[in-house]
């Protein structure tokens, strides 16, 4: 097939998966916390259960004026939201939705993943700096400090999985989980509980924690910290650009949840079924796992208060990074011994 045609199809399909998934997560974020707080939540939009609320919100934002402050560095200011969105959507290039359903199966998949997801950090910093607002600046700097601190444990947590699977390709990692054999010779359908969830549980917890920090979600939402910095780096944004950030936040959540599902929960894989079936069911399986993880992220967010910036740094450097190093060491030792 023509390269360009294929590229267009892949881009459309990825956007067609990521953006609706993000909308679904936004809907969960509206409805679930409402019930956790004894409220009803959105109700009118779409006729029943307010299912169209995220769309309605988006439409509302589109109608708003796109303000650029006088003091802003306007070209950087205008570009920033797209950089953020690009970083998160770019992740999906290598996420496998089925044995053959992957936009591009890179051999250096994990490497690419970590590199492209850091791009959104740049966008946040651009937004914070260019807004010409002191709150935005503090928010942007906090975001930079926080993302640097948490990129490390994130990477180190993934290293354990890479050692375990002996590959950097995400497809390879899913395959390795699917064909994992407990005690040398058990049949693969025994892997009802994804094997890496047990073997790399430390890595998973570190990865999930670091993801929360990467996403700037409570308890690590200091870059936004509504009660301290009004809205942090988002303070000056409005209209379409705010929508991009908003969408980027949830697309980021979907993408990190998809990565976590792939690395630790077996991705698209289900026991008992063959590859042909997985090519059909795979996206659904992955999406279910993504929504499950998103629910946990949302649940945490609506239960916990926020840490302080220095406490967050302490946690990263004094706890998460040593723990992930120990995890790598233990994984390596086990790999050598068995």
């Amino acid at each position, binding site marked *: 097939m023509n390269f360009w045609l294929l590229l267009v199809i892949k881009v459309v399909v990825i956007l067609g998966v990521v953006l609706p998934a993000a909308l679904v997560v936004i809907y969960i974020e509206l409805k679930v*916390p409402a019930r*956790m*707080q*004894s*409220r009803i939540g959105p109700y009118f939009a779409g006729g029943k259960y307010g299912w169209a609320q995220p769309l309605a919100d988006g439409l509302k934002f589109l109608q708003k004026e796109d303000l650029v402050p006088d003091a802003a560095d306007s070209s950087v200011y205008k570009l920033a939201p797209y950089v953020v969105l690009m970083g998160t959507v770019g992740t999906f290039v290598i996420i496998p939705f089925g044995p053959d359903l992957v936009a591009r199966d890179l051999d250096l998949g994990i490497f690419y993943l970590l590199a492209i997801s850091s791009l959104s950090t740049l966008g946040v910093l651009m937004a914070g700096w260019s807004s010409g607002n*002191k*709150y935005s600046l*503090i928010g942007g*700097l*906090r975001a930079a400090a926080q993302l640097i601190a948490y990129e490390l444990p994130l990477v180190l947590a993934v290293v354990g999985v890479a050692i375990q699977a002996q590959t950097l390709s995400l497809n390879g990692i899913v395959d390795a989980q699917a064909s994992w054999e407990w005690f040398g010779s058990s049949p693969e359908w025994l892997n009802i509980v994804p094997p890496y969830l047990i073997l790399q549980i430390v890595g998973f917890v570190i990865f999930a924690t670091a993801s929360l920090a990467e996403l700037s979600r*409570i*308890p690590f*939402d*200091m870059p936004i*910290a*509504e*009660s*301290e*910095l*009004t809205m942090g780096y988002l303070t000056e944004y409005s209209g379409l650009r705010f929508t991009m950030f908003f969408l980027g936040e949830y697309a980021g959540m979907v993408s990190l949840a998809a990565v976590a599902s792939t690395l630790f929960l077996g991705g698209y894989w289900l026991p008992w079924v063959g590859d042909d079936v997985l090519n059909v069911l795979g996206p659904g399986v992955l999406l279910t796992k993504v929504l499950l993880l998103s629910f946990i992220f949302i649940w945490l967010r*609506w*239960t*916990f*208060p*926020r*840490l*302080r*910036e*220095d*406490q967050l740094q*302490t946690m990263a450097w004094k706890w998460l990074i040593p723990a992930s190093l120990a995890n790598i060491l233990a994984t390596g030792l086990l790999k050598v011994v068995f």
Partner: protein
Amino acid sequence: MTQLDPRVAMHLSDAAVSVELETPDMTLNIGPQHPSTHGVLRLVARVDGERVEAVEPVIGYMHRGYEKLAEVRTYAQTIALVNRIDWVSGFANEIPFVIAVEKLMDVEAPERAQYIRMILTEMARISSHLIFMSSYPLELGAATPLMHAFRERERILELIEGVTGGRFHPNFNRVGGVKPAAGGGSATKKLIQDLPAGFLQQARDAMDKVLTVCDDLDDLVTGNEVFQARTIGVGVVPRDKALEYGLSGPNLRASGVGFDLRKAEHILPYDGIDFEIPTGENGDCFDRYIVRLAEIRQAARIIQQAVDRIPSGPLQAKVPRVLKVPPGQAYVRAENPKGEMGYYIVSEGGRVPYRVKIRSASFSNLSILPWILENQLIPDLVAIMGSLDFVLGDVDR
């Protein structure tokens, strides 16, 4: 600063480096519109990165001049005014004013009226503290305790409204008693007014719910490691500073002073009620939080006892229809949810007071801000400010 937290010390040393590099300080205007200033408080903060070097609070955005307004209003009209000072506990504001006028006129409210005053004051206290229980975690980033606390506060407000007719501004106290709103159909004003039927039982039920939500808040907030990390050891107010700045109420008790005007002053029948005065030990944000949580439980206890003991009888002592207060001066203070609320009334014998000085708790509680916010981090600034539990109407009057 007696004990220097190692983390703070670390920041201080960072700051020293910054000074050598001659990075200029930034002036950060926090407010008057800002999510954590509870309305229209403005803080002009000189910040060095995340560290706040000095803070100058600017107040007066909500100054309504109640002391001047009271000079042109009759006593009955002023009652409608004073419940707007600290609007989250409107009922409690009326009590000291009315009792000050009663003292000047040498009348005393009937016992049933006093019990109703006590029950509703404690309800106002619960409602005010529940607002704190909701807004304080929110300032630290936890949004869910807000709705849990508001859910139960709504019940309390509905009970207050059922009796007085107003959720926030009851305008219920009269000189010499209380006056239930003449609710409903024709000729009702000629009827004897009293508590609506079922109120006492509803109050009992509501107290059970309040105690349940206190347990929920314990699980959601008090025991939460993140919350404790944010509040324990933060914003310590030692006893002598608290007294010097006139901190009162839960803020003072958190610093270890077990002083409560409900026990010290005998203006409402608290004498026969069994309740404790919760105090803190360290005077930090966590203590201020935990003292308020304990006060909700004690207030519920007071109400449970009071509804069992409330005597029957009239609600109003005999008072002339046109109030002329004999010349004299009286200061009456009461334990408001926010602290010591008092009215100093100077009467010259007319229908309107010659001077009313309003001592509001939040004003003094907030005056400690420049001292307490020196050399704190921005997130701690929010945590400390929230823990003082002020209402701008109570600050600006």
